């Protein structure tokens, strides 16, 4: 019998608005249909645009209103088996939720952690409690309390993997459960101390460095807390081996990462007064020492400096200009960039767009939308200028 009676479900008044349709991108669909279904979480405050997080990706959720109605039809819930000819309408849906891959919304992390920086010789009690920042924000506790990892998971619209990567890349320590961003100047100090310690103790460089020796030496000679030392090593390399046995742990150093951070430390002092490129490189090489000198190279710092790229200015100078300080939403970022410099070489502007586009394709789309491309000169260089009034 191919005929079925279509009825409203006996529960249809209760079921109203209890069904939604999520449009699944192919990768997410494959993940859901896999043998081990993922944990999906919708994150966001009522005031924020909601996102859907898998264990390692973030999707923005956009509602698309349909002109048609979609009926969600099933068997009658709790209906008897004999009633094989009846199918019921559970709900009528007028919108589809689109999922668009998105960069994790990590900006809030910096805001939540403002004033919680960890500097030399500080302990938890010395943390300055800053009430002013949150004043006037009604749904927040009036008194500042420490931000724990589970707090961050709940507050930050990012997947688990993206959040823990962010803690590493933004250099946020976890001390007694609280998240504490290390101050950049102290981080540079610690890294320079690590390099010094490796040399002075005759420890192997770069590979299979005994973790305990480095951490102990830092603690004894320079009063760097052991948990701080250890986490800094984790950020700049990988700790391998020695499961359950700290003595056997070895550190595989990310040489470029360490050298880059030390370079940033020097560059950071030149936000307003430019430094000559040659002089900067000399200082940088000196800071990392003879052994690591060869790893020093300017491209390591891309996205963090502006260089006077016009051939008529000698010598070339550098200014500290971190992309992390730029606004996150594309329109304001472009307007900031074009205020800083009216004309950008394609290769120069790219590093400053890396963190607001998930891939190269999306970056080019942004450039197409917010900038005007012109090809100039003999080398056919592509320059970008601001688009007129939008």
């Amino acid at each position: 019998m191919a005929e079925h009676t279509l009825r409203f479900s006996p529960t249809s008044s209760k079921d109203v608005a209890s069904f939604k349709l999520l449009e699944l991108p192919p990768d997410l669909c494959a993940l859901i249909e896999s043998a081990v279904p993922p944990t999906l979480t919708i994150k966001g405050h009522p005031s924020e645009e909601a996102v859907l997080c898998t264990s390692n990706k973030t999707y923005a959720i956009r509602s698309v209103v349909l002109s048609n109605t979609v009926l969600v039809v099933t068997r009658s819930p709790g209906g008897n088996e004999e009633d094989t000819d009846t199918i019921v309408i559970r709900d009528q849906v007028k919108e589809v939720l689109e999922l668009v891959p998105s960069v994790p919304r990590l900006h809030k992390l910096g805001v939540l952690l403002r004033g919680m920086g960890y500097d030399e010789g500080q302990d938890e009690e010395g943390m300055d409690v800053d009430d002013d920042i949150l004043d006037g924000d009604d749904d927040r506790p009036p008194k500042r309390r420490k931000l724990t990892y589970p707090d961050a998971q709940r507050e930050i619209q990012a997947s688990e993997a993206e959040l823990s990567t962010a803690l590493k890349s933004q250099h946020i320590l976890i001390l007694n459960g609280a998240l504490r961003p290390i101050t950049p100047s102290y981080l540079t100090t610690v890294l320079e101390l690590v390099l010094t310690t490796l040399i002075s103790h005759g420890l192997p460089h770069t590979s299979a460095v005994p973790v305990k020796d480095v951490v102990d030496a830092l603690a004894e000679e320079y009063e760097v807390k052991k948990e701080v030392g250890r986490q800094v090593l984790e950020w700049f390399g990988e700790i391998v081996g020695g499961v359950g046995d700290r003595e056997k742990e070895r550190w595989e150093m990310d040489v470029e990462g360490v050298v880059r951070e030390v370079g940033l430390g020097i560059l950071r002092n030149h936000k307003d007064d430019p430094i000559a490129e040659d002089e900067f490189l000399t200082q940088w090489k000196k800071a990392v020492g003879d052994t690591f000198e060869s790893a020093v190279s300017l491209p390591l710092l891309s996205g963090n400096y502006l260089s006077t790229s016009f051939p008529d200015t000698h010598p070339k100078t550098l200014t500290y200009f971190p992309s992390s300080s730029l606004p996150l939403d594309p329109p304001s970022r472009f307007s900031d960039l074009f205020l800083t410099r009216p004309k950008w070489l394609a290769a120069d502007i790219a590093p400053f767009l890396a963190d607001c586009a998930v891939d190269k394709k999306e970056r080019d789309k942004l450039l197409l939308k917010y900038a005007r491309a012109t090809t100039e000169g003999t080398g056919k260089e592509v320059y970008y200028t601001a688009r007129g009034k939008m």
Partner: protein
Amino acid sequence: MLIPITISSSSTASLPVQLTKLGNDELVLIELQGSLDVECTDSSERDGQMVGTFRLDEGSSKPTLAIGHHLLEGKIVSLPKPFGVIQRSTTPSAPHQNVHNHDPGDAMCGIGSEEGSLRWDMVAIVKKKIVFSKRPMPIVGTATIAVGSSSKKD
């Protein structure tokens, strides 16, 4: 605020065999141009009420839907991207309540624990839908003709 989505299967019975070939055993999406508008003072009045007759013959891809004296002809359409159908579930889920035990008086967590019971279940992944996009045709019911002809005789 966190709202978990669990991947689960709904508890309802399987659909008739003609419909299960649309890719999902338990749920089918039917798209209508316009919407079903039922006049009632309370929305619960329409619970369990009949809407019409749905017909999809074995081996056919031409579903029809008769509502009152209107017949709709539809087609089966593959979705460009599959839909995950999620259903709101208000049964408290144990693992997520544990997340919210924090100091009392914390406004942020207060909201969290209220929402702790809210959960969505992904009950189905649907890859095809049935679309009724044409204008309805009037049904000249055989019954009506019969009545008409018999009344003539009288």
